[in-house]
């Protein structure tokens, strides 16, 4: 029996269309739009101004606190302006717009492809380098990585968990990274182990990526303490809490962090970024983006500089198909539809899924038929139909008592609902209101 989380979960059609296509490098964009803040936490502050010359890897926005992250110029050129530009949700956010001139890298960055296996840095150095490089969780949540690695006094961890589950349908970027950058992942993992002083690491991979499991298991023999664990194909296996439950059978307490039960979870893409930051001094300026969809001519995995407009990536895979219904930033389950393709790739853009008109249609919502399917698929053990009703009646206090804040917004409930009830929409509304109440209480 393959390991998995015990409660709920769904198995949507996998549709991993681009799994067989290697990672391609995108040509340099003519212009990049780099949002100043691409992470969860305190907003960063721009440190360049209009007309400044920047090189690839130059710091352009500085972290605005501990839980915050730097941003670096993904190209070399001239800062055109710092202006408010639309983000994926359509709201204006401060962005640094850089006109590309060439690709001249900042000194000290090793751009060669040589693999550096020896780890010389101390744990403090590793953490500082990760913080300087502006690395955030590349799985999509964009939580600053150095914060996760700073273990507060009184807490100890015994496992590093590397998330290679990639449970989202369609997306294959992590899969390709595991196949093509296996050594980098393992060295990155060892760096994370050293930074936190842990001797054990587990890489959890869903069983639909057999080639990646086999490849990593083979090369992991060269590295100490790293174990590869195949997992059952079940969404949301890649959810942090679900992954820990599946691999270690430990449960993150309500409102707690993985730190509380002795683990730190990082995405495979993040480990590669950590490897590059520590061993090669390369800041996080590009990422693998999976551009996919049933109507897309050639779905593939692209390495794109941060700030490249989505439209250029879509152009690269053969342009927007005629029957496009929705363009989703991220995967089909947790991604968000974008209103324009002029928005840039950010550190959290794991994929672009293009849905045709039939796929993208939301069914007509009818009344709840009390089949309780949403209950049985909720991986957290909540009652989505109940939460939706409370949220609709705006009873925020009761919603808090019903543990709405434990919802991971995986969307399994909405996916499975035969009556097309917009469960997650209402739960999100409730979460937003409840978190506001909790925040005001803390003040």
């Amino acid at each position, binding site marked *: 029996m393959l390991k998995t989380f015990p409660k709920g979960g769904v198995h949507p059609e996998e549709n991993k269309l681009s799994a067989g296509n290697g990672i391609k490098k995108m040509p340099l964009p003519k212009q990049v739009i780099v949002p100043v803040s691409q992470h969860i936490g305190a907003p960063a502050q721009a440190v360049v101004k209009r007309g400044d010359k920047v090189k690839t890897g130059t710091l352009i926005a500085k972290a605005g606190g501990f839980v915050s992250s730097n941003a670096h110029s993904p190209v070399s050129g001239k800062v055109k302006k710092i202006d*408010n530009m*639309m983000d994926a*949700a*359509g*709201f*204006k956010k401060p962005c640094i717009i850089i006109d590309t001139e060439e690709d001249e890298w900042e000194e000290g960055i090793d751009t060669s492809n040589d693999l550096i296996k020896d780890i010389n840095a101390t744990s403090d150095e590793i953490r500082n380098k990760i913080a300087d490089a502006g690395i955030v969780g590349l799985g999509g949540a964009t939580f600053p990585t150095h914060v996760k690695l700073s273990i507060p006094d009184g807490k100890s961890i015994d496992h590093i968990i590397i998330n290679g589950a990639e449970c989202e349908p369609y997306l294959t970027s992590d899969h390709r990274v595991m196949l093509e950058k296996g050594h980098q992942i393992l060295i990155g993992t060892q760096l994370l182990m050293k930074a936190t002083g842990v001797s054990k690491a587990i890489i959890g991979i869903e069983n639909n990526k057999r080639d990646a499991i086999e490849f990593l298991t083979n090369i992991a023999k060269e590295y100490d303490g790293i174990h590869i664990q195949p997992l059952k194909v079940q969404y949301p296996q890649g959810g942090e809490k679900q992954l820990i439950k599946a691999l270690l059978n430990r449960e993150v307490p309500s409102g707690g962090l993985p730190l509380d039960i002795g683990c730190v979870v990082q995405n495979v893409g993040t480990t590669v970024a950590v490897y590059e930051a520590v061993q090669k001094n390369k800041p996080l300026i590009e990422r693998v983006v999976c551009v996919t969809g049933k109507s897309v001519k050639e779905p593939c995995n692209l390495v794109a500089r941060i700030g490249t407009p989505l439209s250029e990536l879509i152009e690269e895979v053969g342009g927007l198909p005629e029957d496009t219904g929705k363009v989703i930033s991220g995967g089909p389950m947790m991604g*968000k*539809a974008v*209103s*324009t393709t002029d928005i840039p790739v950010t550190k959290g853009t794991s994929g672009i899924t293009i849905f045709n008109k039939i796929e993208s*249609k*939301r069914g007509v*919502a009818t009344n709840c038929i009390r089949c309780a399917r949403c209950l049985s698929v909720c991986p957290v053990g909540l009652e989505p139909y109940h939460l939706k009703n409370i949220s609709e009646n705006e009873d925020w206090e009761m919603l808090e008592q019903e543990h709405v804040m434990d919802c991971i917004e995986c969307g399994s409930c909405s996916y499975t609902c035969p009556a097309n009830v*917009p469960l997650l*929409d*209402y739960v*999100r*509304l409730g979460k*937003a209101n409840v978190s506001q109440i909790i925040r005001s209480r803390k003040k």
Partner: protein
Amino acid sequence: MNNMEIILYTLLSLSGLGIILALILYVVAQRFKVVEDPRIDEIDELLPGANCGGCGYPGCRGFAEALVQADSLDDFYCPVGGNETMKAAASILGKEVAEKEKQVAVVRCQGSPEHRKKTSEYDGPQSCILESKTYSGDSDCPYACLGLGDCVEACDFDAIHMNPETHLPEVIEANCTACNACVEVCPHDIIELRNAGKKSRRIYVSCVNEDKGGPAKKACDVACIGCGKCVKVCAFDAITLENNLAYIDYEKCKLCRKCVDECPTNAIVEVNFPPKKKKTEKKPPPDKKETEKKSQPKDNTNQASENEQEQQNSNSDETKA
């Protein structure tokens, strides 16, 4: 024991029990008597009984209780009952109440599809608040009306309706009680309560876009671009410009209408004014009439004085029917 005795004992024991219980009830009622000010009932009678919460109290009775307990009535106002109700309540309480100007809800967005191009389509649950949690809206203006009618649902007085052509809510002034329900429910804060004004004439900036001029104008033809022309032309300092958005203070505005002519995007709206005599030297902007048309049915008053307005009222009635 014969039958008669059984009946007798039953009657005696039951009536005895009844008397004892009645005595207990009487003693309890006397002991824990709640003395309520009779004026609360009187004022409660006066109030409209809509329980809309527009006064800020939980229902009309709550308001009546608060009125009786209050030292001064300055901070109290029943928007539904208006000044008359407040005066009547004040006379019961033997207190003075300052007269407040009647207010009405105004919708500060003119972004009908013809002015504001749709750039995306929203197919989620039909509720403004849910849409606003998902993204900025179906056009490039992140401030605009989402058009799904949360305000219509919130209104207890049938005073706000969606216009099927403009996809914007329209306030029926005669029904609007300024209870604030629509203002609170609107996630984009488009609806505002403003003084109804003399003869129900009002001038306001019908836009809440805080973007710079370029993007604002690009997203919507009739957006306030923050040019500040109205601020300059206003002789009464009634207009302020903040975050690229003009705002007319209804307390200071003398309804001279200079700003309406000055506004290059027709973002400033006048309602219930008789049509102006055409000026010869200045050509009115081409789509000016259209905006006027749009703004006027918003506040359908019953006191239509001009032919044109009557016509428009009947037009909009038709569309409603």
